[in-house]
Each structure stands twice: as C-alpha cells, then as structure tokens.
C-alpha cells in the first residue's frame, strides 16, 4: 500500500491536495525512476495569504525518516492577500516542499458508512432510510423463509406436465425448468405416439418416462435421423443456461441497484437514473456471467437428462460419447458468439451511455474533487473552482494566469460564474 501512496501523491498530470486542504500540487510530467519532475505548480493558503510556487524542473527526494520532499529548482514564489493588488515575488534556486504521506482525501461520510449508533444519534431522513434497510434485511429473511412454506406446494399428481397453472404452483415449477421443458419438448414429438400411449399419457408420464422416451426416440430415428435429439438437447441446454443467466442478472442487478441507491440525491440523481444506470450496465454483466451461466445451465440440463435416464436412452439408440461431445460443442458455439458480440459491440457503448447518464445526472462536470474544489489546467493557466452547483453555476473561482516562461501574469477572483459552452466562462464578481 505504501508505494502507491507515493505514486498517488505525485502522479503526473493530475492535481493532488494535502490532507489539510491547504496545499495543492500539480506536476505535469514525471519520471518514476530517478524522481525527476517537470513543470511544478504549488498553491498554498495559509493565514489568509495566498502563495503560488512555480518551477520548471525539480525532483522528488526521500530523507532518512521517511518524509518525502519535492525539490523545485529555479522557480518563483508569489505571495499575497487575496483581493489586494500587492504581491511579493521571490525567486529561488531550490525550494523543498514536504509531501505528506497521509491520504489525500478523507473517507467521505455517507449514511451507509455509519454505525447503527451513529445513525440513531442523528435521525435525518437519509440515515433513517439506511437504518430501515439494515433492520429490514433480517425481517425480510424470516418472512421469506415462512413464505416459502405455502409457495412450495406442488401437486405430485400433476407430474411433469403443466396443466396446473394456478399461481401457487408456478414458482417451484420455474425453479425446475428442465423438467418443465422436458414435458413441453416432447409434447410435439409425442404426437406420433399419442395414439399408442393413449389419453392417460399426461397422468402417467412421470412413471413411464424412460419407456416412452425410448419409444419416441425409435420413432424419431425413423422420421428424422439424429436431428430431433440434437434439437431437443440444444433446447434443454439453451433454456437452462438462459434461465441461470436471467437469475444471475436479477441477483447482480439487485446488488448494483443497492449500490446506486447510495448515490441518490447527488445532483439530480434520482431513482429513475439509478434504474436506468443499472439497466445500461446489464450488457457488461451479461458478458461477465454468460460463461458461468452456460456452465451451470449445461450441467443442470445434462444432470436432469441423465437423472431421467435420457442419456442412457441416447446411448442405447447409438449415440457415442464422442458424438455427444461434438453435439455439446455445437450447442456451445452460439454462446461463444453471443459472448463475443456482447463484449465487443453491445457492452462498451451501453457502459459509456451509463457513465454519461450518471455524470450528467450527478452534474459532475470536472475531473477530481478536493476540499478546495475543482482544479483545471488550461494551457498555462490554472483554474480553481470552489464549488459547482447542480444547475451548472460555479462559485468561488480563482484563475492563475501564467505566460509560457511560467511567470505569473495575474490572479483573478470571482464569487460566482456561469459556464457558457462555446465561449469562455463569464465571470461576475
């Protein structure tokens, strides 16, 4: 962890703030190996005075006790009180600034980071909402367990056929997809043997599955060679995989949504944005979970087939293990293609749209947020914006103008500003 601190404290091209928010660093380019850095900009505020240091060259140095310094060479220091025209200019050959190894940003306080005692001590609506969520989870757990008792009802006499379409019986049926589809899958092909087995077929199906299937396969073999069993297994595996995928997406979508709920109320970020964001990140989730879903779905479908002795029937009707493997490879290919297409063409644009939606809704216009506000480098100028309101208004702006030799030309301040897209920002003091 420690080496990352150092890199993070002085990473080139980005602004860094010290832990007291009184000092902001910017280093344009740096080489990690010999510690040399270029174009250093340091802004300090201490006792109401504003200090700016700029230098073209410098290096980082670590002394014995572990303190790290940025040493600036041949630079200038400007010092003055904001609002007054008097500025002192000092030129220096060597100026060392200590980099604190403390973290740059403290942990932000959000309701979900507080302990229960802290939540109850400060009963604001967000805190109470978080508290209700935490208390709700165990209550939901015990309710779900009790709810499962009536939901588990399955009429054993209904067999695997699905004439029992009453609501209570549906849920366990959904959890047993392969059996469901075993029933449906054969419904079509079983027409050929309907006249033989007779109208009582639906009720005795569970009992005489292997026998009947052997019959069907015999007929199928005569009718369409090996195509029917291939179609059947393909449908079984595909349906089981898609069902597993759907339940994964449900689970992860739920987790993602919980995550996003933490961001509610930042800017205009509302529930509809959180839901939209979760939906747009779904293709990425599909890409992540599709391989596992096909594995589990395939395992499930084949286990069901073998439990119902259907694999044995297949083997008996002359399908070798190698043929079965080739068949599974053929079934897997569309999923490979689907994963590829999702990962290459669907997920990236969707992810991008999701991030844009989030940024737009949270009105985060700029890169890094410090306690001293936003910092932007615009060619030779540095701009500090104290805060940005959700409707795009800027507050407490300070602009440091430099020429190309890093000489400070002016420091402009404004209390408010608006951002006008095509032109430059209009300032009003």
């Amino acid at each position, binding site marked *: 962890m420690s080496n990352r601190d150092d890199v993070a404290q002085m990473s080139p091209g980005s602004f860094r703030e010290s832990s007291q928010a009184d000092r902001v660093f910017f280093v344009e380019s740096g080489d990690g190996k010999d510690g040399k850095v270029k174009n250093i900009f340091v802004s300090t505020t201490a006792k109401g005075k504003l200090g700016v240091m700029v230098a073209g060259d410098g290096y980082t140095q670590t002394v014995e006790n572990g303190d790290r310094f940025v040493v600036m060479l041949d630079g200038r220091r400007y010092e003055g009180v904001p609002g007054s025209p008097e500025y002192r200019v000092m030129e220096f050959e060597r100026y060392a600034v200590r980099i604190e190894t403390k973290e740059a940003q403290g942990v932000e306080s959000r309701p979900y980071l507080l302990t229960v005692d802290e939540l109850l001590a400060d009963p604001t609506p967000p805190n109470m909402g978080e508290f209700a969520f935490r208390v709700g989870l165990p209550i939901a757990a015990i309710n779900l*367990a009790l709810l499962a008792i009536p939901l588990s009802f399955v009429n054993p006499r209904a067999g695997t056929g699905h004439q029992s379409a009453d609501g209570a019986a549906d849920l366990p049926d959904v959890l047993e997809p392969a059996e469901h589809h075993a029933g449906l899958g054969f419904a079509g092909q079983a027409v050929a043997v309907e006249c033989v087995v007779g109208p009582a077929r639906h009720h005795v199906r569970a009992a005489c599955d292997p026998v009947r299937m052997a019959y069907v396969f015999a007929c199928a073999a005569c009718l369409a060679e090996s195509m029917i069993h291939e179609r059947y297994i393909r449908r079984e595996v595909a349906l089981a995989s898609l069902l597993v995928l759907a339940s994964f997406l449900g689970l992860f979508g739920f987790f993602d949504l919980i995550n996003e709920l933490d961001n509610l109320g930042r800017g205009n970020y509302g529930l509809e944005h959180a839901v939209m964001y979760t939906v747009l990140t779904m293709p990425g989730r599909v890409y992540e979970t599709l391989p596992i879903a096909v594995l589990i779905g395939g395992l499930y479908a084949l286990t069901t087939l073998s439990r119902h002795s259907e694999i044995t029937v297949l083997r008996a009707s002359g399908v070798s293990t190698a043929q079965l493997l080739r068949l599974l490879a053929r079934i897997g290919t569309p999923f490979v293609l689907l994963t590829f297409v999702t990962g290459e063409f669907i997920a990236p644009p969707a992810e991008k749209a999701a991030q844009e939606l989030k940024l737009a809704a949270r009105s985060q216009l700029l890169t890094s947020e410090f306690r001293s506000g936003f910092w932007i480098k615009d060619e030779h100028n540095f701009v500090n914006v104290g805060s940005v309101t959700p409707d795009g208004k800027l507050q407490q702006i300070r602009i440091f103008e430099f020429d190309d030799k890093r000489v400070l030309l002016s420091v402009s301040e404004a209390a408010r500003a608006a951002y006008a897209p095509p032109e430059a920002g209009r300032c009003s003091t």
Partner: protein
Amino acid sequence: LIFQRAALREFAGTALTVFVALFAIVLSTQLVRLLGQAAGGKVASEAVMALLGFGALRYLSVILSLTLFIAVLLAMSRTWRDSEMVVWFSTGVPLTAWIRPVLVFAVPMTVLVAVLSLYLAPWALNKSAEFRTA
C-alpha cells in the same frame, strides 16, 4: 421428533449447496471487477484480497436471506413432488407443523443476517472505503 430432524437435515443440505453456489458466483464476479480496477490503477493490487473479503462481508446478508428462501422452497417442493408430504399428512402431521422446523432453521440464520447487516456490513464498507482512498 423424527419429523423435525428430517426437515432440518433436508433444509441444511439444500441451504449449503445453494449458499456455496451463490457465494462462489458473487465472489468470482467481485474478483473480476476488482482485478479490473487494480489493473486500471484504481485500487492497489495488494488491497484486492482485502477488498474482496470486505465485499463478501457486505453481500453476505443478502446472499444468506436468499439462501434461506431458496433452501426452504426447494426442500419443501421436493417433499411435495416425492409424495413425502402426503405421507406426513397421513401420519397426522399438518402443513402448519412445518412452521416450527422452518423457524428453528431460520431464526439462527436471521440472527446472523441481522448481525451482518447491522454491524459487520457497515464496518466492512468503512474499511473498504478507507482502502480505496488510501
């Protein structure tokens, strides 16, 4: 108490399978995500394992609730399908008698979920937030 023992054994077996499956899936996707972030420099590579642990603690409460529901549902729909329920009914055990073993099974899990969601999850979130900013 053969009935209660049989029911509990059934629940525990199913719950274990369901839990292992759900937990493994959540962990592996978390790991994929964290490795992605570590490769992008958003989190330190040394912190990935710790963050994975904190993430697991965070999701454990939801996973356990789901496990509870699915385990009871699967175990009981199996007893229905295998006509075991009919046997219990004919020996004079009504459907309401199932509430007791379900509660015996669910209450310890619920206590665990409560501890996780009230105390451990916020602690884990705090820790992982610290790890991310450090």
